[in-house]
């Protein structure tokens, strides 16, 4: 009985899409300077990291990562890291890997810089937490392709735009887990600190943050993983690094090339994951 004849659902009754397009255009025209200001610190950090990592002779990052893996976890992870990085170098993906590493590091630094304070605030203030929760949900679930175009319009293409997209995607876990970590601290401990005359700041610094640290590090680990998973998508808006061989390989139906890029991403992900996880468990 009910059919498309009655209710023309394929016709939008609210022109939301037009409104959004108009709003973005208006932002691009009127607030270009604001977005350049937002972009600047990310750009500076990213460029410094990229230039720095690429300027190093290839064996230095290998040694550093191997030692880091050894300290954080043990011989097995150190051996694995050494082998994986040597393989990446032999595959001719060294520069791309360093670029990706720089992008991941830059996004994680900004995610931690924004996410931990916001998470702390949310952990201590339930109203604020309720307010930001839908925003976090949107950041995590909105398909990246939806905000890639506005990002390009606002920040143009390239590595920096890629990092900005990555920050949006990878920020929620560290906020959520910081918030969780702060709220998991036993109320008696906070009460005890207050009873002995601790100020709000001392409660935060001496009790809540140290006790929330393992959870915050777990959040950092998740953020790193999500940042790595954005690498390929960021390559769609002209970001370099390991995403480009994958995107290029797909566009030219060069499966082998895409697979090699994918392999390097996986190896990098495994190493970063194990290292940060071992740190969190300590």
């Amino acid at each position, binding site marked *: 009985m009910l059919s498309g004849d009655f209710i023309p659902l394929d016709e939008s009754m609210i022109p939301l899409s037009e409104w959004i397009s108009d709003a973005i255009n208006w932002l691009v025209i009127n607030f270009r300077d604001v977005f350049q200001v937002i972009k600047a610190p990310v750009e500076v950090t990213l460029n410094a990291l990229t230039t720095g990592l690429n300027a190093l002779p290839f064996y230095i990052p290998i040694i550093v990562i191997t030692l880091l893996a050894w300290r954080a976890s043990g011989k097995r992870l150190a051996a694995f890291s050494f082998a994986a990085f040597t393989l990446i170098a032999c595959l001719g993906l060294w520069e791309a890997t360093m670029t990706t590493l720089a992008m991941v590091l830059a996004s994680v630094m900004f995610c931690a810089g924004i996410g931990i304070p916001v998470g702390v605030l949310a952990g201590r203030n339930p109203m604020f937490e309720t307010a930001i929760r839908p925003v976090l949900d949107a950041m995590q679930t909105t398909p990246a392709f939806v905000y890639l175009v506005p990002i390009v319009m606002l920040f143009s293409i390239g590595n920096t735009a890629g990092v900005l997209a990555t920050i949006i995607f990878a920020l929620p876990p560290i906020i959520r887990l910081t918030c969780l970590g702060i709220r998991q601290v*036993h109320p*008696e*401990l906070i009460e005890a*600190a207050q*009873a*002995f*005359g601790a100020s709000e700041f001392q409660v935060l610094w001496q009790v809540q943050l140290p*006790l929330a640290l393992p959870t915050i590090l777990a959040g950092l680990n998740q953020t790193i993983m999500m940042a790595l998973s954005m690498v390929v998508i960021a390559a769609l808006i002209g970001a370099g690094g390991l995403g480009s061989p994958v995107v290029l390989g797909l566009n030219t139906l060069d499966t082998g090339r895409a697979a090699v890029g994918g392999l390097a991403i996986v190896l990098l992900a495994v190493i970063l994951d194990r290292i940060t996880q071992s740190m969190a468990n300590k």
Partner: protein
Amino acid sequence: MDFQKEKVVVKNLYKIFGSKSNRAFALLEQGHSKEDIYQKTGLTIGVQDASFTVHEGEIFVVMGLSGSGKSTLVRMLNRLIEPNAGSVIVDGKDVTQMSHDELVQFRLHNMSMVFQSFALMPHQTVLENTAFGLKLAGIDEEQRNRRAKEALKQVGLDGWENASPSQLSGGMQQRVGLARALAVDPDIMLMDEAFSALDPLIRAEMQDELLKLQQQHQRTIIFISHDLDEALRIGDRIAIMQDGVVVQVGTADEILRSPANDYVRSFFKGVDPTGILTTRDIVRNNHPTLIITKGGNIPATQEYLSTSDRDYCYLLTPDKKLLGVVSTESLREVAELASATARLSDAYLQDVPTLGLHDVLTDIQPVVASSPCPVPVLDDEGNFKGVISKSRFLRILHKPERIIHSVQEAHYA
């Protein structure tokens, strides 16, 4: 011990949980019950019109069942919970009126707290935990470690400084909690069910420890407990809370003798009264006494004793000081042996012990048992008040309820 200086004065303290708590005051004034008010407004009365005074140097136990508001009450003393009305005056200064900074200073230096759940920082060592309050007070590391070590030594935990709290047993963890509270050298310690989470043996051990510490350095301690035995054991005075109201304040003895209501009475039902009742409660003045002015007269005393149907006579000075005790037997011996020069004092029984008015029954048992005659009881000035005989003592031990009843009735009458 002089407990008379007022240390903490709590006046008309109220805590009402919920928003717009003022609505509850009007209803309370109209005499509505706690349940009534909850039904009408959704507000919970935590503490209602609590007033009491804690004297300097005493252990003041606040006792009640869970939910009676005792934990809320103690948290209002250092404003971990803000009272809705009333005042808490410590050394003449109203804590409820303190600014935030004053309150922080007060918590840093005057009042520390021991928690039921120990509330030790799991990320810090035993030493760091003990020095926690000192660190907050801005004391440099060397000095605070020294003071923390001292405090740990006081509670018998020297050598454990670098352990983590999770390596310690419950009793040891609470010793750290106690050391943390002692380290800041407060004049007042709040102890919120501090020993309730420990098993009975350890609990008793900690109570003794606390009493020992109290002997070395007398602090004012406000101790929250739901355990009457604990209250009787350590408390100088006890406040009993019921549904947020302080229903009675007094020494164990006073409360036992005249409980304010059935709730209080039921609390004391299982208690062994011989640990609380004192000689004052069972002393009897049912033996003959004779006031002696000039050396006394043996035949007259013999005559007096024989008419009284008792075996012992207590000889007193005119101002009621005890001179000695004679028995029918001792009088006869003296009269027969040396009738010419005999004086009444020759007939005095040897090794007659005496008891004070405030001696607890459990403590006097050996005295009563070994005495040659019913034991005379003297008050603080040394005046004779009566005697306690073996048979009376045994009867009390056998059926202590009877004496409590008779004492209570005497108070009601």
